Protein backbone atom coordinates (compact mmCIF):
# COMPACT_ATOMS: atom_id res chain seq x y z
CA UNK A 1 0.00 0.00 0.00
CA UNK A 2 1.25 3.46 -0.98
CA UNK A 3 0.42 6.25 1.44
CA UNK A 4 0.21 9.86 0.27
CA UNK A 5 0.91 12.25 3.09
CA UNK A 6 -1.90 14.77 3.53
CA UNK A 7 -0.67 17.54 5.78
CA UNK A 8 -3.03 20.05 4.23
CA UNK A 9 -0.97 21.34 1.31
CA UNK A 10 -1.35 20.93 -2.38
CA UNK A 11 -2.89 18.82 -5.00
CA UNK A 12 -3.09 15.28 -3.66
CA UNK A 13 -5.74 14.16 -6.07
CA UNK A 14 -3.52 14.14 -9.15
CA UNK A 15 -0.88 12.06 -7.39
CA UNK A 16 -3.56 9.73 -6.04
CA UNK A 17 -5.17 9.40 -9.47
CA UNK A 18 -1.85 8.64 -11.14
CA UNK A 19 -1.09 5.71 -8.80
CA UNK A 20 -4.68 4.54 -9.04
CA UNK A 21 -4.47 4.69 -12.84
CA UNK A 22 -1.36 2.50 -12.67
CA UNK A 23 -3.29 -0.06 -10.67
CA UNK A 24 -1.45 0.46 -7.38
CA UNK A 25 -3.13 0.23 -3.99
CA UNK A 26 -3.01 3.78 -2.72
CA UNK A 27 -4.41 5.68 0.22
CA UNK A 28 -4.35 9.18 1.64
CA UNK A 29 -2.70 9.47 5.06
CA UNK A 30 -4.46 12.24 6.94
CA UNK A 31 -3.05 11.38 10.34
CA UNK A 32 0.56 10.72 11.35
CA UNK A 33 -0.37 7.28 12.73
CA UNK A 34 -1.65 6.24 9.26
CA UNK A 35 1.94 6.08 8.03
CA UNK A 36 2.65 2.97 10.10
CA UNK A 37 0.14 1.03 7.98
CA UNK A 38 1.64 1.71 4.55
CA UNK A 39 4.69 0.22 2.78
CA UNK A 40 5.61 3.23 0.67
CA UNK A 41 5.32 6.93 1.34
CA UNK A 42 4.74 9.82 -1.04
CA UNK A 43 5.22 13.41 0.09
CA UNK A 44 3.64 15.77 -2.43
CA UNK A 45 3.39 19.51 -1.98
CA UNK A 46 2.67 22.76 -3.71
CA UNK A 47 3.06 26.16 -2.12
CA UNK A 48 5.52 27.85 0.16
CA UNK A 49 8.23 26.09 2.19
CA UNK A 50 7.38 27.78 5.47
CA UNK A 51 3.70 26.77 5.36
CA UNK A 52 4.71 23.26 4.43
CA UNK A 53 7.18 22.68 7.27
CA UNK A 54 4.89 24.47 9.73
CA UNK A 55 2.05 22.12 8.83
CA UNK A 56 4.30 19.06 9.03
CA UNK A 57 5.27 20.16 12.53
CA UNK A 58 1.79 21.17 13.70
CA UNK A 59 0.09 18.02 12.49
CA UNK A 60 2.59 15.72 14.16
CA UNK A 61 3.84 14.35 10.85
CA UNK A 62 7.40 15.39 11.66
CA UNK A 63 7.96 12.55 14.16
CA UNK A 64 5.90 10.01 12.20
CA UNK A 65 7.84 10.71 9.01
CA UNK A 66 11.17 10.39 10.77
CA UNK A 67 10.04 7.06 12.25
CA UNK A 68 8.76 5.56 9.03
CA UNK A 69 11.15 7.06 6.48
CA UNK A 70 14.40 7.15 8.43
CA UNK A 71 14.05 4.48 11.15
CA UNK A 72 11.90 1.97 9.23
CA UNK A 73 13.44 2.91 5.87
CA UNK A 74 10.23 2.70 3.84
CA UNK A 75 10.67 3.60 0.17
CA UNK A 76 9.76 7.28 -0.04
CA UNK A 77 9.07 9.66 -2.89
CA UNK A 78 9.06 13.45 -2.56
CA UNK A 79 7.56 15.64 -5.26
CA UNK A 80 8.31 19.33 -5.83
CA UNK A 81 7.89 21.06 -2.46
CA UNK A 82 7.78 17.56 -0.98
CA UNK A 83 11.38 17.23 -2.19
CA UNK A 84 12.46 20.65 -0.98
CA UNK A 85 11.14 20.06 2.51
CA UNK A 86 13.59 17.14 2.78
CA UNK A 87 16.48 19.62 2.71
CA UNK A 88 18.24 21.13 5.73
CA UNK A 89 17.02 24.68 5.31
CA UNK A 90 15.23 26.96 2.92
CA UNK A 91 15.69 30.61 2.09
CA UNK A 92 12.21 31.06 0.66
CA UNK A 93 10.78 34.16 2.35
CA UNK A 94 13.22 33.96 5.28
CA UNK A 95 15.28 31.12 6.66
CA UNK A 96 13.54 27.93 7.74
CA UNK A 97 14.61 24.50 8.90
CA UNK A 98 13.45 21.46 6.91
CA UNK A 99 13.36 17.72 7.61
CA UNK A 100 17.12 17.57 7.01
CA UNK A 101 17.21 14.22 5.20
CA UNK A 102 19.40 15.71 2.49
CA UNK A 103 22.39 17.93 3.19
CA UNK A 104 21.02 20.71 1.02
CA UNK A 105 19.80 24.28 0.98
CA UNK A 106 16.71 25.46 -0.85
CA UNK A 107 17.61 28.58 -2.81
CA UNK A 108 16.03 30.75 -5.45
CA UNK A 109 16.52 29.97 -9.13
CA UNK A 110 18.92 32.49 -10.60
CA UNK A 111 19.35 31.98 -14.34
CA UNK A 112 22.09 34.19 -15.78
CA UNK A 113 20.01 34.93 -18.88
CA UNK A 114 17.36 37.55 -18.04
CA UNK A 115 15.02 36.14 -20.67
CA UNK A 116 14.51 33.06 -18.49
CA UNK A 117 11.56 33.39 -16.15
CA UNK A 118 11.20 32.70 -12.47
CA UNK A 119 9.04 30.80 -11.62
CA UNK A 120 10.17 28.37 -14.23
CA UNK A 121 6.95 26.90 -15.55
CA UNK A 122 7.09 24.26 -18.23
CA UNK A 123 8.70 21.25 -19.78
CA UNK A 124 12.44 20.82 -19.48
CA UNK A 125 14.78 18.15 -20.75
CA UNK A 126 16.23 16.11 -17.91
CA UNK A 127 19.67 14.53 -17.81
CA UNK A 128 19.62 11.56 -15.47
CA UNK A 129 21.85 8.85 -14.02
CA UNK A 130 21.03 5.69 -15.96
CA UNK A 131 22.01 3.39 -13.10
CA UNK A 132 19.10 4.60 -11.01
CA UNK A 133 16.28 2.03 -11.24
CA UNK A 134 13.62 4.75 -10.87
CA UNK A 135 14.53 6.03 -14.34
CA UNK A 136 14.31 2.61 -15.98
CA UNK A 137 12.54 2.63 -19.34
CA UNK A 138 12.93 6.35 -20.06
CA UNK A 139 14.37 7.61 -23.35
CA UNK A 140 17.68 9.47 -23.36
CA UNK A 141 16.41 13.01 -23.03
CA UNK A 142 12.92 12.96 -21.57
CA UNK A 143 10.98 16.14 -20.87
CA UNK A 144 9.34 16.66 -17.50
CA UNK A 145 7.01 19.32 -16.21
CA UNK A 146 8.37 21.72 -13.62
CA UNK A 147 6.89 24.65 -11.85
CA UNK A 148 9.07 26.27 -9.23
CA UNK A 149 10.96 29.35 -8.10
CA UNK A 150 13.26 27.61 -5.60
CA UNK A 151 15.34 24.48 -5.96
CA UNK A 152 17.44 22.13 -3.89
CA UNK A 153 21.14 22.93 -3.92
CA UNK A 154 22.75 19.76 -2.63
CA UNK A 155 26.02 19.96 -0.72
CA UNK A 156 26.78 16.33 -1.52
CA UNK A 157 26.91 15.88 -5.31
CA UNK A 158 26.42 12.12 -4.84
CA UNK A 159 22.80 12.75 -3.87
CA UNK A 160 21.93 14.38 -7.19
CA UNK A 161 20.74 11.85 -9.80
CA UNK A 162 19.11 14.17 -12.35
CA UNK A 163 19.52 17.77 -13.44
CA UNK A 164 18.15 20.15 -16.03
CA UNK A 165 19.76 23.15 -17.65
CA UNK A 166 18.60 26.63 -16.69
CA UNK A 167 21.87 28.33 -17.67
CA UNK A 168 23.35 26.10 -14.97
CA UNK A 169 22.53 22.63 -13.69
CA UNK A 170 19.43 22.71 -11.52
CA UNK A 171 18.70 19.68 -9.33
CA UNK A 172 15.85 17.69 -10.83
CA UNK A 173 16.09 14.55 -8.66
CA UNK A 174 17.91 13.38 -5.57
CA UNK A 175 18.35 9.89 -4.21
CA UNK A 176 19.71 8.67 -0.90
CA UNK A 177 19.12 5.16 0.43
CA UNK A 178 15.34 4.69 0.49
CA UNK A 179 14.49 8.30 -0.34
CA UNK A 180 13.95 9.49 -3.90
CA UNK A 181 12.62 12.90 -4.79
CA UNK A 182 11.90 14.93 -7.88
CA UNK A 183 11.58 18.65 -8.43
CA UNK A 184 9.44 17.93 -11.48
CA UNK A 185 5.91 16.59 -11.30
CA UNK A 186 5.76 12.97 -12.51
CA UNK A 187 1.98 13.02 -12.04
CA UNK A 188 1.82 15.90 -14.55
CA UNK A 189 4.41 14.66 -17.03
CA UNK A 190 2.29 12.27 -19.05
CA UNK A 191 3.83 8.91 -20.03
CA UNK A 192 7.36 9.50 -18.75
CA UNK A 193 6.04 10.70 -15.43
CA UNK A 194 3.80 7.67 -15.10
CA UNK A 195 6.84 5.50 -15.91
CA UNK A 196 8.71 6.92 -12.92
CA UNK A 197 5.74 6.34 -10.63
CA UNK A 198 5.48 2.79 -11.93
CA UNK A 199 9.16 2.28 -11.17
CA UNK A 200 8.60 3.65 -7.68
CA UNK A 201 5.82 1.11 -7.08
CA UNK A 202 8.31 -1.72 -7.75
CA UNK A 203 11.38 -0.04 -6.27
CA UNK A 204 13.45 -2.06 -3.81
CA UNK A 205 16.07 0.30 -2.39
Amino acid at each position, binding site marked *: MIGIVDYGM*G*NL*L*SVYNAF*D*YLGAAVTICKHPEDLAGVDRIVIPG*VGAFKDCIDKINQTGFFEALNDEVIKNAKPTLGICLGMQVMGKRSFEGGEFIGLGWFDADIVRLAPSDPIL*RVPNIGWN*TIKYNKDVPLFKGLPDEPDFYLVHSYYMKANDPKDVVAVYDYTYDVTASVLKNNIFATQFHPEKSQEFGLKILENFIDWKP
Partner: protein
Amino acid sequence: MSKKRLIPKLQLRTASYNPNKMVLVVTKQFNEVIEIGDPVSQAKIFQAQAADELIFINIDRHNKDIKKLSGIINKVSEEIFMPITVGGGIKTSDDFRELLSNGADKISINTSAVIRPELITETSEKYGAQCVVVSIDFKKDEQGEYWVYINGGQEKTSYHPLDWALKAEKLGAGELLLCNISFDGMREGLDLEIIKSISENSSIPVIASGGCGLAQHFADGFLKGRADAVAAGSFFAHRDQNFMQTRSQIKNAGINIRMHH
Protein backbone atom coordinates in the same frame (compact mmCIF):
# COMPACT_ATOMS: atom_id res chain seq x y z
CA MET B 1 15.65 25.82 -20.83
CA SER B 2 11.93 25.57 -20.59
CA LYS B 3 10.36 24.56 -23.84
CA LYS B 4 7.76 26.76 -25.45
CA ARG B 5 4.28 25.43 -24.73
CA LEU B 6 1.25 24.72 -26.91
CA ILE B 7 -1.94 24.81 -24.92
CA PRO B 8 -5.44 23.89 -26.03
CA LYS B 9 -7.96 26.21 -24.41
CA LEU B 10 -11.19 24.38 -23.67
CA GLN B 11 -14.06 26.79 -23.25
CA LEU B 12 -17.13 25.48 -21.48
CA ARG B 13 -20.68 26.51 -20.93
CA THR B 14 -23.91 24.93 -19.79
CA ALA B 15 -25.31 22.77 -22.56
CA SER B 16 -28.29 24.26 -24.37
CA TYR B 17 -29.98 20.86 -24.28
CA ASN B 18 -29.20 19.96 -20.65
CA PRO B 19 -28.84 22.42 -17.76
CA ASN B 20 -26.85 19.87 -15.74
CA LYS B 21 -24.18 19.32 -18.33
CA MET B 22 -21.29 21.46 -19.44
CA VAL B 23 -20.20 21.31 -23.06
CA LEU B 24 -17.17 22.39 -24.98
CA VAL B 25 -17.69 25.44 -27.19
CA VAL B 26 -15.78 27.59 -29.63
CA THR B 27 -16.30 31.33 -29.92
CA LYS B 28 -15.74 34.16 -32.34
CA GLN B 29 -14.91 37.56 -30.82
CA PHE B 30 -16.41 36.16 -27.60
CA ASN B 31 -19.76 35.72 -29.34
CA GLU B 32 -21.14 33.25 -31.90
CA VAL B 33 -20.81 30.37 -29.51
CA ILE B 34 -20.88 26.91 -31.10
CA GLU B 35 -21.23 23.75 -29.02
CA ILE B 36 -18.75 21.15 -30.17
CA GLY B 37 -18.73 18.28 -27.72
CA ASP B 38 -17.76 16.72 -24.43
CA PRO B 39 -14.85 18.34 -22.56
CA VAL B 40 -13.57 15.14 -20.95
CA SER B 41 -13.35 13.17 -24.21
CA GLN B 42 -11.72 16.10 -25.93
CA ALA B 43 -9.18 16.42 -23.10
CA LYS B 44 -8.25 12.77 -23.65
CA ILE B 45 -7.66 13.42 -27.33
CA PHE B 46 -5.40 16.34 -26.46
CA GLN B 47 -3.47 14.11 -24.07
CA ALA B 48 -2.98 11.48 -26.77
CA GLN B 49 -1.63 14.25 -28.99
CA ALA B 50 0.77 15.30 -26.22
CA ALA B 51 -0.52 18.82 -25.67
CA ASP B 52 1.71 20.50 -23.09
CA GLU B 53 -1.04 21.71 -20.76
CA LEU B 54 -4.77 22.30 -20.80
CA ILE B 55 -6.78 25.38 -19.92
CA PHE B 56 -10.47 25.01 -19.01
CA ILE B 57 -12.55 28.18 -18.87
CA ASN B 58 -16.21 28.40 -18.02
CA ILE B 59 -17.39 31.18 -20.32
CA ASP B 60 -21.08 30.84 -19.45
CA ARG B 61 -22.31 34.36 -18.67
CA HIS B 62 -25.16 33.15 -16.47
CA ASN B 63 -23.96 30.00 -14.81
CA LYS B 64 -20.73 30.38 -12.88
CA ASP B 65 -21.27 27.40 -10.58
CA ILE B 66 -17.84 26.49 -9.20
CA LYS B 67 -19.01 23.05 -8.01
CA LYS B 68 -20.12 22.09 -11.47
CA LEU B 69 -16.79 23.21 -12.89
CA SER B 70 -14.84 21.36 -10.21
CA GLY B 71 -16.89 18.24 -10.99
CA ILE B 72 -15.60 18.31 -14.55
CA ILE B 73 -12.02 18.90 -13.44
CA ASN B 74 -12.31 16.04 -10.97
CA LYS B 75 -13.34 13.75 -13.79
CA VAL B 76 -10.61 15.04 -16.11
CA SER B 77 -7.93 14.49 -13.47
CA GLU B 78 -8.72 10.77 -13.25
CA GLU B 79 -7.18 10.21 -16.64
CA ILE B 80 -5.32 13.33 -17.65
CA PHE B 81 -1.76 13.61 -16.38
CA MET B 82 -0.64 17.04 -17.43
CA PRO B 83 -0.93 20.53 -15.96
CA ILE B 84 -4.45 21.91 -15.81
CA THR B 85 -5.46 25.56 -15.49
CA VAL B 86 -9.05 26.35 -14.62
CA GLY B 87 -10.94 29.63 -14.83
CA GLY B 88 -14.32 31.27 -15.15
CA GLY B 89 -16.23 32.88 -12.32
CA ILE B 90 -13.62 32.38 -9.63
CA LYS B 91 -14.05 35.01 -6.95
CA THR B 92 -12.57 33.85 -3.67
CA SER B 93 -9.71 32.01 -2.11
CA ASP B 94 -12.20 29.23 -1.24
CA ASP B 95 -13.02 28.86 -4.93
CA PHE B 96 -9.31 28.31 -5.51
CA ARG B 97 -9.23 25.61 -2.86
CA GLU B 98 -12.29 23.88 -4.29
CA LEU B 99 -10.74 23.66 -7.76
CA LEU B 100 -7.21 22.85 -6.60
CA SER B 101 -8.47 20.00 -4.46
CA ASN B 102 -10.30 18.58 -7.47
CA GLY B 103 -7.25 18.37 -9.69
CA ALA B 104 -6.53 21.89 -10.97
CA ASP B 105 -2.91 23.05 -10.82
CA LYS B 106 -3.39 26.69 -11.65
CA ILE B 107 -6.35 29.01 -11.39
CA SER B 108 -7.09 31.71 -13.89
CA ILE B 109 -8.82 34.86 -12.67
CA ASN B 110 -10.03 37.73 -14.79
CA THR B 111 -13.02 39.89 -13.81
CA SER B 112 -12.60 39.26 -10.07
CA ALA B 113 -8.93 40.30 -10.24
CA VAL B 114 -9.84 43.65 -11.77
CA ILE B 115 -12.67 44.25 -9.32
CA ARG B 116 -10.66 43.15 -6.30
CA PRO B 117 -6.93 43.16 -7.07
CA GLU B 118 -6.14 42.01 -3.51
CA LEU B 119 -7.40 38.58 -4.58
CA ILE B 120 -4.18 38.16 -6.56
CA THR B 121 -1.99 38.85 -3.55
CA GLU B 122 -4.14 36.84 -1.19
CA THR B 123 -4.16 33.71 -3.34
CA SER B 124 -0.55 34.09 -4.42
CA GLU B 125 0.55 34.11 -0.78
CA LYS B 126 -1.71 31.22 0.09
CA TYR B 127 -1.20 28.86 -2.84
CA GLY B 128 1.99 30.19 -4.41
CA ALA B 129 2.44 32.58 -7.32
CA GLN B 130 2.77 29.66 -9.78
CA CYS B 131 -0.87 28.91 -9.11
CA VAL B 132 -2.27 32.34 -9.96
CA VAL B 133 -2.83 33.02 -13.65
CA VAL B 134 -4.21 36.45 -14.41
CA SER B 135 -6.24 36.34 -17.59
CA ILE B 136 -6.43 39.62 -19.49
CA ASP B 137 -8.97 40.20 -22.27
CA PHE B 138 -8.49 43.35 -24.25
CA LYS B 139 -9.32 45.06 -27.54
CA LYS B 140 -9.15 48.40 -29.30
CA ASP B 141 -12.13 50.71 -28.83
CA GLU B 142 -13.67 52.87 -31.56
CA GLN B 143 -10.90 55.43 -31.06
CA GLY B 144 -8.30 52.77 -31.74
CA GLU B 145 -7.07 52.65 -28.16
CA TYR B 146 -6.40 49.47 -26.25
CA TRP B 147 -8.40 48.72 -23.11
CA VAL B 148 -8.87 45.76 -20.80
CA TYR B 149 -12.42 44.35 -20.78
CA ILE B 150 -14.06 42.21 -18.14
CA ASN B 151 -17.25 40.17 -17.74
CA GLY B 152 -16.66 38.15 -20.87
CA GLY B 153 -15.59 41.18 -22.87
CA GLN B 154 -18.75 43.13 -22.09
CA GLU B 155 -17.43 45.77 -19.75
CA LYS B 156 -14.65 48.22 -20.47
CA THR B 157 -12.19 49.03 -17.67
CA SER B 158 -9.84 51.96 -17.22
CA TYR B 159 -6.73 49.83 -17.72
CA HIS B 160 -4.42 49.61 -20.70
CA PRO B 161 -3.45 45.91 -21.07
CA LEU B 162 0.25 46.58 -20.36
CA ASP B 163 -0.50 48.62 -17.24
CA TRP B 164 -2.83 45.98 -15.88
CA ALA B 165 -0.38 43.19 -16.70
CA LEU B 166 2.43 44.90 -14.82
CA LYS B 167 0.17 45.68 -11.89
CA ALA B 168 -1.01 42.06 -11.75
CA GLU B 169 2.59 40.88 -11.77
CA LYS B 170 3.47 43.23 -8.95
CA LEU B 171 0.50 41.98 -6.94
CA GLY B 172 1.74 38.40 -7.18
CA ALA B 173 0.48 36.84 -10.42
CA GLY B 174 2.61 33.90 -11.57
CA GLU B 175 1.55 33.87 -15.19
CA LEU B 176 -0.43 36.01 -17.64
CA LEU B 177 -2.97 34.72 -20.13
CA LEU B 178 -3.62 37.29 -22.86
CA CYS B 179 -6.42 37.43 -25.37
CA ASN B 180 -7.41 40.10 -27.85
CA ILE B 181 -11.19 39.81 -28.03
CA SER B 182 -11.40 41.09 -31.63
CA PHE B 183 -8.94 38.40 -32.75
CA ASP B 184 -10.71 35.54 -30.93
CA GLY B 185 -11.78 32.74 -33.27
CA MET B 186 -10.86 34.71 -36.41
CA ARG B 187 -7.90 32.44 -37.20
CA GLU B 188 -5.95 35.33 -38.69
CA GLY B 189 -3.10 35.47 -36.21
CA LEU B 190 -2.34 36.83 -32.73
CA ASP B 191 -2.15 40.46 -31.60
CA LEU B 192 1.64 40.50 -31.63
CA GLU B 193 1.94 44.15 -30.65
CA ILE B 194 0.44 43.81 -27.18
CA ILE B 195 1.85 40.33 -26.59
CA LYS B 196 5.35 41.58 -27.34
CA SER B 197 5.10 44.65 -25.17
CA ILE B 198 3.83 42.64 -22.20
CA SER B 199 6.34 39.79 -22.70
CA GLU B 200 9.23 42.21 -22.87
CA ASN B 201 8.19 44.25 -19.88
CA SER B 202 7.20 41.54 -17.44
CA SER B 203 9.32 38.80 -15.93
CA ILE B 204 6.62 36.16 -15.49
CA PRO B 205 5.55 33.73 -18.23
CA VAL B 206 3.11 35.01 -20.84
CA ILE B 207 0.54 32.81 -22.56
CA ALA B 208 -0.67 34.39 -25.79
CA SER B 209 -4.07 33.53 -27.23
CA GLY B 210 -6.75 34.72 -29.59
CA GLY B 211 -6.52 34.28 -33.33
CA CYS B 212 -4.36 31.27 -34.20
CA GLY B 213 -5.40 29.66 -37.47
CA LEU B 214 -2.09 28.43 -38.86
CA ALA B 215 1.10 26.90 -37.48
CA GLN B 216 2.83 30.12 -38.52
CA HIS B 217 0.67 32.11 -36.10
CA PHE B 218 2.02 30.07 -33.19
CA ALA B 219 5.57 30.55 -34.42
CA ASP B 220 4.93 34.31 -34.67
CA GLY B 221 3.63 34.36 -31.11
CA PHE B 222 6.91 32.85 -29.91
CA LEU B 223 9.36 34.61 -32.23
CA LYS B 224 7.76 38.02 -32.71
CA GLY B 225 5.53 38.17 -29.64
CA ARG B 226 8.18 36.58 -27.39
CA ALA B 227 5.48 34.61 -25.59
CA ASP B 228 6.33 31.58 -23.46
CA ALA B 229 3.22 29.70 -24.48
CA VAL B 230 0.48 29.98 -27.06
CA ALA B 231 -3.06 28.84 -26.30
CA ALA B 232 -5.78 28.29 -28.83
CA GLY B 233 -9.42 27.28 -28.74
CA SER B 234 -10.93 26.92 -32.17
CA PHE B 235 -7.62 25.97 -33.76
CA PHE B 236 -7.24 22.78 -31.71
CA ALA B 237 -10.95 22.06 -31.58
CA HIS B 238 -11.33 21.75 -35.31
CA ARG B 239 -10.76 18.18 -36.21
CA ASP B 240 -9.28 19.04 -39.56
CA GLN B 241 -6.13 20.18 -37.76
CA ASN B 242 -3.47 17.56 -37.42
CA PHE B 243 -1.81 18.37 -34.11
CA MET B 244 1.36 16.41 -34.86
CA GLN B 245 1.82 18.10 -38.19
CA THR B 246 1.28 21.53 -36.67
CA ARG B 247 3.82 20.69 -34.02
CA SER B 248 6.45 19.74 -36.61
CA GLN B 249 5.80 22.95 -38.51
CA ILE B 250 6.25 25.02 -35.37
CA LYS B 251 9.43 23.10 -34.53
CA ASN B 252 10.72 23.66 -38.06
CA ALA B 253 10.20 27.38 -37.63
CA GLY B 254 12.96 27.16 -35.04
CA ILE B 255 10.88 27.00 -31.87
CA ASN B 256 12.10 24.84 -29.00
CA ILE B 257 8.98 22.83 -28.28
CA ARG B 258 8.44 19.41 -26.84
CA MET B 259 8.23 16.67 -29.44
CA HIS B 260 6.25 13.60 -28.69
CA HIS B 261 8.84 10.98 -27.69
